[in-house]
C-alpha cells in the first residue's frame, strides 16, 4: 500500500517533468518533444534550443532542489525533535545570503544580476560553508541538540544583521539584484551549475538513504537511540553534513527556498500516517520534487512569457500546511 503511494508520487514526478517540458510560453507537442529530446534530424532547431537551453535545466534543477530541500528538512526535524525545524535552522541560508550580499552589494556594481552565475554560486557556497563548518565544529562540543539549534539561529541572526547593514549602504540596482536572488528561482542554472548542484546533492541524498534505521531510533531522542545501539555523535555529524550540503548547494544556485524543507516532511507524515524513515525518505524525495516542479510550472504561467517568484508560489502553498500542522497539534 505505502509502496504503491510512493510509486504514485514518482509517477506524478514524471508527469510534472513532462508538463514542464511541453508547456511554457510556447507549447511543444509530445511528438516534437520526443524528436528534440533524442536529437532526431527531423527536430526543429528552435524546439531543441528551448528544450536543452531552457526547460530541461530548470526541470532538473527543480527536481534536485525539491528533493534535496525536503530531505534536508526531514533530517533536521528528526535530529532536533522539532516539528518546525527546517533545512535552514542552522543559519545556512543566512550564511549563503551573506555571501551573495557581499558579492552583489559590495562588489560596487560589478555583479548586478543573476547572470553573475558561477560567481554568485561561489559566494553563496562560501557563506553557507562558513556557517556549516562553525556548526559542525560546535556540534562536537555541545551536548544537546536544542543548544545547537539555538546557536544556529544566532548565526543566522548575525549574518542577517550584516546583510541589513550592507543593504542600507547599497545602490537601488544592487538591492534589486539581491532581492531577486532571495525570491528563489530554478531558471538561473546552466549545464555547468546543474552538474555542480547534482555532484553535491546526489551523494548527500544517497547518504541520507543509508540512515533510515538510526533515524527511526532517533525519534525517541538521543539517549534512547544510544541505548538501542546507535553511535549518536557519529549519526549527528552525518546528518549535519548531509543537511548542510543539501541546503547549502540548493540555496547557492536557486536562492533561499525555505518552505519546501518545512512543509514537505509534514505532508509526507500525514499522507502516509507513519514516522518510519524507510517510507518518509523516498516519499520526501518524490513529493519535494513534485512540489518544486508544480510550483515552477505555475510560476512560469504557461502561455505567458513572464514568471512569478518561486518563493511566493511556494509560500502560498507552504504556509497553509504549517498552519494546519500547528492547529492540529494545539490542545
Amino acid at each position: 500500500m505505502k509502496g504503491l503511494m510512493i510509486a504514485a508520487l514518482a509517477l506524478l514526478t514524471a508527469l510534472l517533468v513532462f508538463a514542464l517540458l511541453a508547456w511554457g510560453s510556447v507549447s511543444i507537442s509530445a511528438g516534437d518533444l520526443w524528436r528534440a529530446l533524442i536529437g532526431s534530424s527531423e527536430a526543429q532547431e528552435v524546439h531543441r534550443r528551448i528544450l536543452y537551453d531552457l526547460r530541461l535545466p530548470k526541470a532538473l534543477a527543480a527536481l534536485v532542489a525539491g528533493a534535496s530541500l525536503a530531505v534536508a528538512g526531514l533530517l533536521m526535524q528528526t535530529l532536533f525533535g522539532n516539528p518546525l525545524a527546517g533545512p535552514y535552522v542552522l543559519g545556512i541560508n543566512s550564511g549563503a545570503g551573506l555571501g551573495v550580499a557581499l558579492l552583489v552589494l559590495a562588489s560596487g556594481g560589478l555583479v548586478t544580476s543573476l547572470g553573475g552565475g558561477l560567481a554568485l554560486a561561489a559566494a553563496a557556497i562560501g557563506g553557507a560553508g562558513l556557517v556549516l563548518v562553525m556548526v559542525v565544529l560546535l556540534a562536537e562540543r555541545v551536548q544537546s541538540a536544542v543548544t545547537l539549534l539555538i546557536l544556529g539561529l544566532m548565526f543566522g541572526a548575525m549574518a542577517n544583521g550584516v546583510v541589513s547593514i550592507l543593504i542600507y549602504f547599497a545602490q537601488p540596482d544592487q538591492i534589486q539584484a539581491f532581492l531577486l536572488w532571495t525570491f528563489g528561482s530554478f531558471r538561473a542554472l546552466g549545464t555547468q551549475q546543474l552538474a555542480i548542484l547534482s555532484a553535491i546533492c546526489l551523494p548527500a541524498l544517497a547518504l541520507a538513504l543509508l540512515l533510515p534505521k538510526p533515524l527511526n531510533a532517533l525519534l525517541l531522542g538521543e539517549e534512547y537511540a544510544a541505548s538501542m545501539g546507535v553511535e549518536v555523535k557519529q549519526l549527528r555529524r552525518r546528518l549535519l553534513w548531509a543537511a548542510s550540503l543539501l541546503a547549502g548547494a540548493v540555496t547557492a544556485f536557486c536562492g533561499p527556498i525555505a518552505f519546501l524543507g518545512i512543509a514537505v516532511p509534514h505532508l509526507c507524515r500525514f499522507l502516509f500516517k507513519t514516522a518510519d524513515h524507510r517510507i518518509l525518505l523516498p516519499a520526501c524525495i518524490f513529493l519535494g520534487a513534485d512540489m518544486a516542479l508544480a510550483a515552477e510550472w505555475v510560476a512560469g504561467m504557461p502561455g505567458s512569457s513572464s514568471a512569478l517568484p518561486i518563493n511566493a508560489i511556494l509560500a502560498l502553498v507552504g504556509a497553509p500546511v504549517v498552519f494546519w500542522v500547528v492547529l492540529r497539534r494545539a490542545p
Partner: protein
Amino acid sequence: MNLLCGENLSIGYKGRTLTSGLNPQLRAGELVCLLGPNGAGKTTLLKTLAGLLPPLGGKVLLKGQEMHQLSAQARARLLSLVLTERPRAPLFPVEELVALGRQPHTGARGTLSAADQGAIEQAMVRAGVLDLRMRHLGQLSDGQLQRVMIARALAQETPVLALDEPTAFLDLPHRLSTLRLLRQLAQAEGKAVLLSTHELDLALRLADRLWLLGPEGLLQGAPEDLALSGALERAFGAPVLDPLSEESSPAGGQLRIEVEGAAKRWAEQAVLRAHWRIDDQATLVLRQEAGAWVLGERRFELLGPLVDHLRGR
C-alpha cells in the same frame, strides 16, 4: 552473578562530581529499587551505569566487560533502558515503536526476520499492550505509553533492564501493575531489573534489594535490613514506613517467629516476601541470637540472605 556493577564509581556531569566511592552491584534474577531524596543523583547513577554518561572516576562493568570499551550495539544487546523522556512523534505507530527494540539485533536496513516479529509480539503480550498495536503514540494515555516503552525494552531481549522512575505520572493501579510486571520479569525470566523510584512503600514491598543513595553514599541491602538499621530513615531524614499487607500466594513453607519489637515486624515481612507462611504452631522457629538471625540450625547475619534461603536459592 553480577550482571552490572560499578567499581569505586564517581558520578556527576560536566566535570562536577555529585558523589563518589560507589560500588553498586546488580545480580541476575533480582529486582533492585534505587531510592534516595531528590537531587541525590539517582538519574545520574542510572545513566552512568547504562553508559549514557561517562563515569568521572572508577569503572562500570557490564557482564564483566568494561562499559566504555563496548560498542553501542554490543551494549544495546546487554542492557535496555526506559527513561522519563517522552517520545515526540505523535504519529509513530505503537507496533513500530516496539519494533525499534529489535535494532541491536537486525542488519543495516533494520529488516525484521520472523524471529524478530515473534520477539516483538511476545514483548507486547508481556507488557499488556497487544491491543494497542494499531494505535499511534499521540492516542495513548501516560500509563499506556509507559507500558509501550517497557514493551520496547523487552523486545530488545537484554539480560539487564534499567528504568528511570517508571511509575512517575501513573495512578496507583498502573503503578502496581507496572511494578508487578517488572518483578515477574526478574523472578520468572531471571532478568536483572534496576529501577529508580520515589515509591518508597511499593519499593519496600516489591524489591529484592534496595540501593539507597544518600549522604552516606550508596547503601545496599534487603529492604528489611535497611529499615531495621535505620539507614532508610537517615537517608530521607524522616520516618517513612507503612505496614505491610499479606500477600496471597502459594506458601513455600511455614515457620514461627520468636522475636520482639520492630525486628519482629521486619522479620515477618521478609518471611512473607519469600512466600512463606507465619504459623504459631509451626515447628521451624526463627530467632535472634547475638545480633544474628537463626532459623533451625542455620545462622544468617541479615534478613536478605534468609529470604534467599527460604526461596531455595
